[in-house]
C-alpha cells in the first residue's frame, strides 16, 4: 500500500512523495517511489524506505523510480543513502528518468561513504577532564608569563618615562575616565539611595535612622564604592581593551608591531594599565562622593538634615577606612586593564574571536575582582584595619 506523507489538500497531496513496498515473486523487495522527491516531501519516505530495506536483510532491493515526477538534490541524496544501506549492487535504482539519472551518476554512492571524514572519536570522560585541566593550566601559565612581561614593561616605563606613549595614555584616560563619569554617577547615586532606603525603613522602628549615615559611609568607602566602580570598568573598559587589542590581533597589527621589533606589551598594554591606574582611583572617589550624596538626599525624607548626615559620616569614617577602599582601587585597576589586554592578545582567528575575547575579559575580570576583594577583606581583618 502506498503511503502519502505530509498534511494538505488533495491538490497538495499530489505534490507529495510516496513509497509503496512489495515483494516480487523472485524474492526481491520492491520500493516503488512516486511523486516529487524534494527536500520538503521526502522526510517520511526516507524513514519508511530505510525501514523496509532493514526489515529484509536477505533480499535484494530494487528502488523503482518509474513514477517519480521530480527529483532534486535532496531526492538524489535519498537514493544515494538507500544504495549505501547495503554492499555494492544489492540495492539498485531502476526506471529513473534520464535527467535525474544523470544527476545520480554524479555521485559514487560507495566511494562517498569512504570520502567522508570519519567522525571525531569521543574522548572518555577522564581524558576530557584531563584536556580541560591542561587547558586551564596553560591559561594560568600564560597569565603568569603575562604578569611577568607586564611588570617588566611597567618597571621599564617608570624608569624611562619618555618611552611611554603619553598620547595614547591620555586618549585612553579620556575613554576610561571622563567617558565613564555618567554611568558611574548614575549607578553610585542609585546605590546610595537604595542602601539608604533599605536600611532606614527597618532602622526607623528602633529610632536608629541616624546610623544609616554610618552604614552608608563605611560600606561605600571601604567596600561598595571601589568594587562597584571596578565592576563597571571591567564591563566597560576591560571589554573595550580586549575587543580593541583582539581586533588588532586579528588584523595582524600585533604581528606588524612584532616584526618592527616593537614589544606589543609595551605598546598596547602599558598605556592601558597606566591609564586605568590613573583613572580608577579617581572614579572610585567620585563614586564614593556621589553615593554619599544619594544617601544624604534620601535621609532628608527621614528628617535627617544634610549637615547631620555629614557630621555623622565624619564621626564614623576615619582615614584608614578611606585608605582601605582607595588602595584597593589601584589593585582593581591593574586587574581590569591587565585581564582585558591579556584576553585581547590571546584572541584567535575567526568571526567570533573578538566577541569571545571581550566576554572572557569581563567574566575573568569580575571573578578576579571578587576574589581579590575577598583577599583584601581577610587581610584587613588580620591587620585590624
Amino acid at each position: 500500500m502506498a503511503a502519502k506523507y505530509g498534511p494538505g489538500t488533495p491538490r497538495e497531496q499530489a505534490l507529495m512523495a510516496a513509497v509503496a513496498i512489495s515483494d516480487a515473486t523472485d524474492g526481491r523487495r520492491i520500493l516503488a517511489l512516486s511523486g516529487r522527491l524534494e527536500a520538503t516531501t521526502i522526510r517520511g519516505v526516507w524513514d519508511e524506505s530505510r525501514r523496509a530495506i532493514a526489515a529484509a536483510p536477505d533480499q535484494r532491493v530494487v528502488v523503482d523510480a518509474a513514477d517519480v515526477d521530480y527529483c532534486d538534490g535532496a531526492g538524489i541524496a535519498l537514493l544515494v543513502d538507500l544504495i549505501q544501506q547495503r554492499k555494492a549492487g544489492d540495492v539498485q535504482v531502476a526506471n529513473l528518468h534520464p535527467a535525474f539519472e544523470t544527476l545520480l551518476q554524479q555521485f559514487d554512492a560507495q566511494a562517498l561513504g569512504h570520502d567522508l571524514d570519519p567522525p571525531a572519536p569521543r574522548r572518555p570522560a577522564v581524558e576530557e577532564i584531563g584536556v580541560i585541566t591542561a587547558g586551564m593550566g596553560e591559561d594560568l601559565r600564560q597569565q603568569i608569563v603575562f604578569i611577568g612581561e607586564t611588570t617588566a614593561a611597567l618597571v621599564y616605563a617608570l624608569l624611562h618615562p619618555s618611552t611611554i606613549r603619553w598620547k595614547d595614555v591620555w586618549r585612553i584616560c579620556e575613554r576610561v575616565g571622563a567617558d565613564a563619569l555618567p554611568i558611574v554617577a548614575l549607578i553610585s547615586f542609585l546605590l546610595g539611595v537604595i542602601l539608604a532606603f533599605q536600611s532606614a525603613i527597618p532602622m526607623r522602628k528602633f529610632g536608629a535612622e541616624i546610623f544609616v549615615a554610618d552604614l552608608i559611609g563605611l560600606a561605600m568607602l571601604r567596600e561598595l564604592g571601589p568594587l562597584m566602580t571596578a565592576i563597571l570598568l571591567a564591563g566597560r573598559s576591560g571589554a573595550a581593551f580586549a575587543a580593541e587589542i583582539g581586533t588588532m590581533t586579528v588584523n595582524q597589527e600585533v604581528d606588524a608591531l612584532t616584526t618592527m621589533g616593537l614589544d606589543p606589551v609595551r605598546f598596547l598594554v602599558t598605556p592601558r594599565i597606566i591609564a586605568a591606574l590613573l583613572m580608577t582611583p579617581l572614579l572610585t572617589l567620585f563614586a564614593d562622593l556621589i553615593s554619599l550624596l544619594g544617601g544624604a538626599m534620601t535621609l532628608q525624607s527621614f528628617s535627617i538634615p544634610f549637615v547631620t548626615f555629614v557630621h555623622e559620616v565624619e564621626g564614623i569614617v576615619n582615614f584608614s577606612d578611606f585608605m582601605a577602599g582607595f588602595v584597593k582601587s589601584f589593585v582593581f585597576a591593574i586587574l581590569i586593564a591587565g585581564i582585558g589586554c591579556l584576553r585581547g592578545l590571546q584572541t584567535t582567528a575567526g568571526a567570533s574571536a573578538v566577541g569571545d575575547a571581550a566576554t572572557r575579559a569581563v567574566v575573568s575580570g569580575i571573578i578576579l575582582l571578587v576574589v581579590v576583594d575577598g583577599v583584601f577583606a581577610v587581610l584587613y581583618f588580620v591587620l585590624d584595619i
Partner: protein
Amino acid sequence: MTTPAPIADPIISVRGLTAGYGDVVLLENVGFDVRRGEVFVILGGSGSGKSTLLKHMIGLLPPQSGSVAIDGDDIIAAEGDARRAILRKIGVMYQSGALFGSMTLAENVRLPLEEYTDLTSDEIELIARMKLSLVGLGAFTGHLPAEISGGMQKRAAIARAMALDPMILFLDEPSAGLDPITSAELDALIKRLARNLDVTFVVVTHELPSIFSIADRVIMLDPRKKGIVAEGDPRKLRDESDDPWVRQFFNREAEPVAA
C-alpha cells in the same frame, strides 16, 4: 622535492626548515637561498604553506626544526637586542595591510622612526611624507586607513615597511583582493622600487600576472610534497618544466576530476 643549489653570499638562507601547526606538518626540510637585490617570489596553491613559510622567515613563528639566516644572522635563535637588530633589516607588508587603524597614514609611517631614531618630530614628518609620496600617497598623509581604498592601504603598508630603509621587504599576497588595474599598479610600484632602491623583495603570491610581471626568481611549494617542487625563472618553468603539476599551475589548468 627540489632543493635549489646554494648561492654565494645570500641575503636570506633557509636551511632544513620543518614547519606546521600542532601535529600538522606543512613544510618538511625546506631549504633555499635568496640573492641580494632580486625580486624573489614564493608561490604555490592555497594551503601549500606560502604564508606559513613567510611567517617563519620573519621570525613570527618558531619552526619545528631548521634555521633562517637574515644577512648571516639566525633570526630564530636571536633574542633581545640581537633580534631587534635583525628585525631592523626587514620590513613586512601584511596581506591585510595591518595599518594601525587609530593612526593616520603619516603616523603609521612615523611610528618605527620614532621608536628607532632620535630624529626630531619635523624630520620624522618629512621622512614619513617622502615615503608616502614614493608610493603615490603624498596627498593622503592625514587620512586614517579606513578612509582610503584597499589598494591604497597596501601601498601605505609598503611605505611603513620602508620607513627604516630595510634591506629586505617581505610582501604577503600584495595583489589579494584587488581589481586587475590596481593590482597591476601595485606590481609596477614593486618593480619601480626594486629597480630604484637597493632592496631585496620577497613576495608571497599565487597571482600569475603578478608573478610574470615582477619575479626574477620563484620557488614553488606543493602541499602534497610539503616542500619546493620547482625553482627558477617563472617563464622557463612555465615552458620547460618536467613537472606536470608545475605546468598545470602556470597554465591555470584544473586538477582532473574523476567523472
